[in-house]
């Protein structure tokens, strides 16, 4: 009888899986928890738990960067996470998303533009050579001399110099508040500069860092194997003998691997997965809040001619019900956000945005004035929740007379239509990394600075000015005020419309793994506290 029930459950589950992507309107409440077991933590590794086993983690896709394994060229959160196992940064982010010491044990700010870092004296690259101030200077200088995506996030660095044994001073040309937070991400990792300069190491092909792990094998899109870096200060206390990262594209397969024990931890994409795993008593699924957020692009340059009208764009913006997206797509685990991620200090309050009133009568009137609208809405298939968000938007916009047809595309096609010049879409959904400082993501609202958005949005000098003000203002009321103005103006212009935060769904096998996972994350690094994990 029990077996029959299980088979019935299996059949029902497959039916549910098949329906995923078209069930937003009736999505069940997720079984994933965001309950903290300690302040700031979804899980805290039990130091008494069995250790020394092989840790197996399943993720949905691999790194894929034109720069190979060079951390400075890492442009996606997945690369930051995987390469972050091998590399360390001067600063890091704690469980409260605050900047904390990393390879720099402390720092002093003599002025708004001068940072003096004291370096850790026990940092050693995995080849056994101790890290020096020259490695720090060389790494930052390399990032500036060879501009990549992260160079812009680093801010206006005027100079970087070794100013003593184990001391480095960085001078900015103007105040830039996110500087310490920008140093915390993998692209700002400290590299073995003398080995790179001598040609001993090709950093695009081989990773050599001071991090807790060393990559011993990698087959692209298949598997990574990491072993402990015996020179790392935490090496003796590491709670596992090796780490295998399996790349498993299918969500149901990752969920099955958690259930049958072939994976200790897996990254999931859909809140539905948590519901599917409720029958597995030794699997826990948790929702990690991210500062990342989903947003809607309204193409005012290459889209429907009516979208050049700010009033029409605002009507679309104001008709979208963020609360419904949060409830139906994320089971209530996310939150509405403005341009500055709502979970970060000084960020704007989405409830104060002009569109928050959802004046549907005014929105309908604006759409009626242009004789109704038929728009396409592009989503890419790699991120299943986008289709679900699109369905909610489709229903919201139908209420004001906008007929939306959803187009689900593979990412290459999506990318070609959204970012090429001329762009070819009316509406499109995507997400931004929110990082750990509210000013960092605001840059993308300036087409002049971001570049990629110039094919579908115009921006404005006023918005650019507020972006600059927000980046240079010190934390506190003035900065909060600048962000509030920035969020409001971007909301009125409605070219890129923030929707809701984008959480990470993480499942792990409680029988084989005792992990430490923070409640919030800013750089998509689910494995940030890997040195605390214990796998039996």
């Amino acid at each position, binding site marked *: 009888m029990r*077996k029959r029930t*299980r*088979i019935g*459950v*299996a*059949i029902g*589950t*497959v039916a549910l*899986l*098949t329906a995923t992507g078209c069930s937003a309107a009736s999505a069940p409440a997720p079984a994933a928890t965001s309950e903290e077991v300690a302040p700031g933590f979804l899980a805290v590794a039990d130091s008494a738990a069995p250790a020394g086993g092989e840790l*197996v983690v*399943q993720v949905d896709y691999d790194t*894929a*960067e*034109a720069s*190979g394994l060079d951390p400075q060229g890492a*442009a*996606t959160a997945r690369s930051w996470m995987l390469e972050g196992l091998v590399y360390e940064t001067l600063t890091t982010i704690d469980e409260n998303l605050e900047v904390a010491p990393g390879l720099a044990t402390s720092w002093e700010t003599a002025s708004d533009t001068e940072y003096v870092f004291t370096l850790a004296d026990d940092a050693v690259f995995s080849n056994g050579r101790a890290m020096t101030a020259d490695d720090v200077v060389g790494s930052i200088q390399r990032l500036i001399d060879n*501009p*990549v*995506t992260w160079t812009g996030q680093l801010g206006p660095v005027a100079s970087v110099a070794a100013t003593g044994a184990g001391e480095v001073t960085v001078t900015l040309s103007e105040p830039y508040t996110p500087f310490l937070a920008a140093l915390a991400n993998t692209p700002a990792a400290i590299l073995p500069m003398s080995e790179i300069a001598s040609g001993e190491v090709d950093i695009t*092909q081989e990773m050599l860092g001071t991090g807790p792990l060393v990559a011993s094998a990698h*087959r*692209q*899109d*298949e598997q990574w194997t990491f072993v402990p870096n015996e020179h790392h200060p935490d090496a003796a206390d590491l709670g596992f003998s090796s780490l295998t990262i*399996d790349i*498993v*594209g*299918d969500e*149901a*397969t990752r*969920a*099955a*691997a958690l*259930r*049958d*024990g*072939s*994976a200790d931890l897996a990254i999931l994409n859909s809140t539905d997965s948590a519901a599917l795993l409720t*029958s597995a008593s030794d699997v826990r699924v948790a929702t990690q809040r991210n500062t990342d957020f989903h947003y809607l692009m309204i193409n005012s340059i290459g889209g429907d001619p009516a979208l050049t009208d700010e009033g029409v764009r605002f009507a679309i913006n104001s008709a979208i019900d963020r609360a419904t997206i949060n409830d139906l797509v994320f089971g209530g685990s996310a939150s509405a956000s403005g341009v500055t991620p709502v979970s970060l200090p000084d960020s704007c309050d989405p409830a104060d945005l002009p569109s928050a009133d959802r004046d549907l009568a005014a929105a309908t009137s604006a759409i009626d004035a242009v004789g109704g609208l038929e728009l396409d809405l592009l989503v890419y298939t*790699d991120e299943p929740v986008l289709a679900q968000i699109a369905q909610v938007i489709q229903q919201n916009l139908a209420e004001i007379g906008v007929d939306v047809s959803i187009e689900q595309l*593979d*990412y*290459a*096609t*999506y*990318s*070609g*239509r*959204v*970012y*090429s010049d001329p762009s070819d879409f009316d509406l499109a959904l995507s997400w931004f990394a929110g990082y750990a400082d509210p000013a960092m993501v605001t840059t993308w609202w300036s087409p002049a600075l*971001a*570049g*990629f958005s110039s094919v579908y949005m115009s921006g404005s000098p006023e918005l650019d000015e507020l972006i600059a003000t927000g980046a240079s203002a010190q934390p506190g009321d003035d900065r909060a005020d600048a962000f509030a103005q920035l969020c409001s103006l971007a909301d009125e212009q409605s070219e890129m419309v923030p929707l809701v935060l984008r959480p990470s769904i993480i499942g792990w096998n409680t029988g084989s793994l005792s992990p430490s996972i923070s409640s919030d994350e800013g750089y998509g690094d689910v494995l940030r506290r890997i040195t605390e994990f214990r796998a039996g």
Partner: protein
Amino acid sequence: MTVILWSLRRVLAALVTLIGVSVLIFASVRLMPGDYTDLVLGPLATEAQRAQAVAASGLDAPIVEQYFRWVGGVLTGDLGYSFVSNVSVSEEFAARLPVTATIAAITIVVTLVIGIPLGFASALRSGGSAGAAGKLLSALGISLPEFLLAGLLVFAVSTLGLGLSVGQFAPFAVDPGRFFGSLVLPIVVLSVGCVAVVARNTRDAVLNVLVEPHVQAAVARGETPLSIVRHHVLRNAAAPILTIVGALVAVLLGGTVIVEFVFNVPGMGSYLQTALGRRDYAIIQAAVLLAAMVFILAALVVDLVSNALDPRLRLTGGSRR
């Protein structure tokens, strides 16, 4: 027409087809929307970074030059390098082809052992309930989508155990037991459809032969059913059955995308699937060309074998009707 001349014409036709297919593959891949630089560099990259990536991957050369460079490479055994991993495509094929070939070979054996007898039984009892049941099962097997069956098996196996795991793949050289264990579920999923297709085609082929005058005459002469099958049906039904089996071999060897993706088996299908998503041209071109070559070769072999079994095909250009 002599056997040798007929065979040479078939080989020549296969070569011409292959050249045409190579042009089509190259053109199709380049016509796909979106390109590799957008994907691996992301929207935040600068124009200089894009230009550098394009130059590094050789995509800045004229398209015709790129084609001939590719074909020249293929003829010398150089299938190019992945844009993403910079690993030789030949090297990846060497690791992945045996996985897919093993799945395909075992699936074909299972298909032949179950599908052909099932088709014969269904045809010989076409008037009864057994024949109807065979027809129904074949229809079900053909219509059952692979992804649905695969998803069901993934969940069932992870819930019920059964001694299998969806995440247990290991190369043959590392652990033969885990290697074959990881292939069981993909083979089961593929076999369901293949058995159904072969059983259905075998049934139709046998029924077509059974109504031939010479078979009717044998029945009138009072020959036993076994004798009729052995002497009159087997040989005549072989050509259409061979054709469908040949097509299945080609499809299976070309890549079993869905099952490899769902069961996380690193074969040709999953390799191609990932490459398609990234517009990794060298991999896509090589994998599709390989699939086309296998298909053309399988069709050629089927033609030659069918001709050996039934010389009348030579006179009618391959078709008896």
